[in-house]
């Protein structure tokens, strides 16, 4: 039986063999692998790109103090971007399942409609959730728009939910029972984190300060966005740093949401504030690429 890390190695190897750059996780908090610049920015524009990386993704509201066997504050995604999409993308994807030991002739695979959408990022795509014996194991999306911009190529995005996929492969009922490395359980690696961040996200985080931080990061982002136009040497403009501010805002929004601090009425407004930043940054990135 493969450990959690064995499965990760195999998937990375598989996609590396198909021309993907193997990136490391991004170091700013994100709610999904899609938000990393390696996806959000790289899917824009006409330049082909293939990349795969594991991204620990933080969703404060999904935390369960480590008590729920399947729900996690932070889960591990394997994110693959194929730009442009190869014609045999689904066969390649199914090949990756074989590569991690799933004998497809003995299982039931279905592609069920699920169109991914992120209002905060002004991004959406068309695709499926891939069901393996009744369990969703992958989100498969043909990106159509990102940062409010129609994409030149429609890249395929494959997002594997590693925790539940490996729980399935190892036939354990709780993700905490996954064998991460030989002799080391998932719980030893991550349980404390789940518990403590659930406490922080639901109980300890200072709501007033979170709101202030959100405003501060937003201000930083806006200030940067406003400078591009007059920037003498476009190449040096810190669009990547600008995007980090967007990610900070998005994470703060998620924290405030988990604290129950955002009313339904406010919600739409705050999402729009962040989307405006994301859209602005995406535009500058495309402009900068064109200027280079």
């Amino acid at each position, binding site marked *: 039986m493969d450990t959690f890390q064995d499965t990760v190695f195999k998937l990375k190897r598989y996609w590396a063999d198909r021309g993907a750059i193997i990136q490391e996780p991004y170091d700013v908090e994100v709610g999904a692998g899609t938000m990393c610049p390696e996806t959000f920015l790289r899917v824009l524009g006409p330049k082909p790109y293939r990349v795969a990386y594991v991204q620990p993704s933080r969703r404060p509201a999904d935390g369960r103090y480590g008590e729920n066997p399947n729900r996690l504050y932070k889960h591990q995604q394997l994110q693959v971007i194929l730009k442009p999409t190869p014609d045999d993308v689904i066969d390649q994807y*199914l090949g990756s399942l074989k590569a991690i030991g799933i004998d497809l002739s*003995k299982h*039931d695979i*279905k*592609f069920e409609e699920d169109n991914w959408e992120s209002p905060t990022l002004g991004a959406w795509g068309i695709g499926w959730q891939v069901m*393996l*014996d*009744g369990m969703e194991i992958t989100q498969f999306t*043909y990106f159509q728009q990102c940062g409010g911009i129609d994409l030149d190529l429609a890249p395929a995005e494959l997002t594997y939910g590693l925790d539940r996929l490996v729980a399935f492969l190892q036939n354990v009922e709780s993700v905490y029972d996954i064998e991460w490395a030989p002799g080391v359980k998932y719980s030893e690696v991550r349980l404390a984190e789940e518990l403590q961040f659930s406490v922080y996200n639901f109980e300890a985080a200072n709501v007033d300060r979170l709101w202030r931080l959100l405003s501060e990061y937003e201000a930083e982002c806006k200030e940067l966005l406003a400078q591009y136009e007059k920037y003498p040497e476009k190449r040096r403009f810190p669009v990547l740093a600008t995007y980090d501010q967007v990610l900070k805002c998005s994470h703060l929004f998620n924290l405030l949401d988990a604290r129950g601090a955002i009313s339904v*009425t406010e919600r739409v407004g705050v999402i729009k504030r962040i989307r405006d930043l994301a859209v602005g940054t995406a535009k500058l990135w495309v402009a900068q690429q064109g200027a280079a």
Partner: protein
Amino acid sequence: MSLDFLLEIGTEEIPHWMIPGALAQLSKLDLLGAAPSVDATPRRLVVRAKGLPERTPDAEQIVKGPPITAGDKAAEGFAKKQGADASALRKAGNYYELVKSVPGRAVREILAESLPIAILGIQWPKSMYWTDRNGPRFIRPVRWLVALLGDQVIPFEIAGLKSGNVTRGHRQLGASSIPVTIATYESELRKNGVILGAHDRRHKIETEAAALGAKLDRELVETLTYITEFPTAIKGGFDPAYLELPAEVLTTVMRHHQKYFSVEGMQGALAPNFVAVMNTSGDPDGLVKHGNERVLKARFNDARFFWNVDQQKKLADRVDDLAKVTFQAKLGSYKEKTDRVVAVVKELGGNEHAQRAALLAKCDLTTEMVKEFTDLQGVVGGLYAKAQGEPEAVSRAIYEHYQPLSMEDSIPETSEGRILALADKLDTLRSCFSIGMIPTGSKDPFALRRAAQGVVKILVEGAMEYRLDALAQGELHAFLLERAQYYFREVRGFKYDEVNAVLKVGVSTLRDVEVRLNHVARVRPTPNFEPLAASFKRINNILKQAGFTRGVVDIGMLEAGPEKELHEAYWSLAAFGPLEDVAELRPYIDRFFDTVMVNAPDPKVRENRLSMLSDMLQKFSSIADFSEIVTSGDQK
């Protein structure tokens, strides 16, 4: 020679609910007179037809030229422009004309041009591009194309993909490259794990699932039919301890989240089993069964967790939390809605249980269970109210208050449930109308038509005696009337003119409308009715022409014979109340018109006769305006 036709559009998995709509469009494909028959799986849309011509026939086209008076120059110019010699022109009346022969074309050539346009012309609820931004759009990427006319490929291209004669089998059960002919197509697919006909897949699902004890439901069968290429049913089980959870929650998890059929045991109670439908031929090692059981267990665990968490705060303690849940931006929170609904329940004379139910009805929107299973709003509230010791009448009313969800759905069973359902919908309608949110055309974001139909259905089928004009005024009143018309026609099957006739004379309660409609529908087939309706129309016209509204009948002035007899007849009929036997009047009316002249020379006699006719019309018009009934003599 006539040829057969095959088109297979090979795609990645199409959303199941969009397939029937696409097939309806493909069934209208122009195949030069041949009738298309269509089939589909999630990965292929197929059109087949027999008896296409090989070529279209040669034809002649007449092109009109200049007037003869325009002279030879003009004629020559016209001929040249048409690529003909002036000697080929002929005279037709005052003009020249040219008969051009249009040679027939190979049908294969015509289809090679028309098919790509037809394929990309299919309308989808949502489409995508997959090559680049300027590439073609379809529901999902097109990956192969089979297009055959007889034994020849109809050559065309979509998104750089050339049509051919090679199909693909089931992803796991078949080969990925299978050359076919029209004759071998379906059997080759079958050998490669694809059951092409939806009917055959549906039948396989139904028989296998039923044999495993599944409680079949049509919607789920349809979904599974179009989500699989080779459906096979398997049975799984779960720990009976989960049966402590309400059946509604368990079946929602199974049906909506997992697409499983539930299984019923003795006396219709849920059994600790489910039936799943795989998209493959078997489960030799039981891995699929095991996997599905594992997923279901996790889902049920979640549901149990939500149930337990939710019980920590009673519905009654959640009323104030509704202030944080928006109903509609301009209309405020669900707390405000709750206050309004409570007031409407009081207005409708609801008892204390109905009022209590109104107060608690929306509280389940703040529960974890409803956040997870939104379809169960109301149902969860009802179940929680029961578990928390609310009176039966209160919990039942909450449970039922979203009913009827459609025209087919039944109305709430309890009187408290009916009043609450009515009040909730009325409040939504009144509030939305008050801020100008009125449905137009296809725009109805708040599903106000459904709410109004619910109101109509509850009022009629609940035999509720509320005057419609007391419940709604102005535009909302008109909107409800329009929905009532729709309901009586489309759901209850009354004819449109009957509905018009009954509504024309006014509406007190919808229940009364129903009673009167039943009368009209009952007397309508009797032989004298339609001629009588025609007579009523005639009377209406006479009164209109005379500009007569109303007068008092002087019985002493009535002439003996047909006039007096008619008067006696309608008085005695009217005395028995509703005109069950209105048709019996017919011979009296006929005789009256045959022998009596309404426009008598003596103005007093004339006025008395008009008075009698209007009096009669008035008496029978409390049921319906019979002049609205379309009789065989009328224009449609």
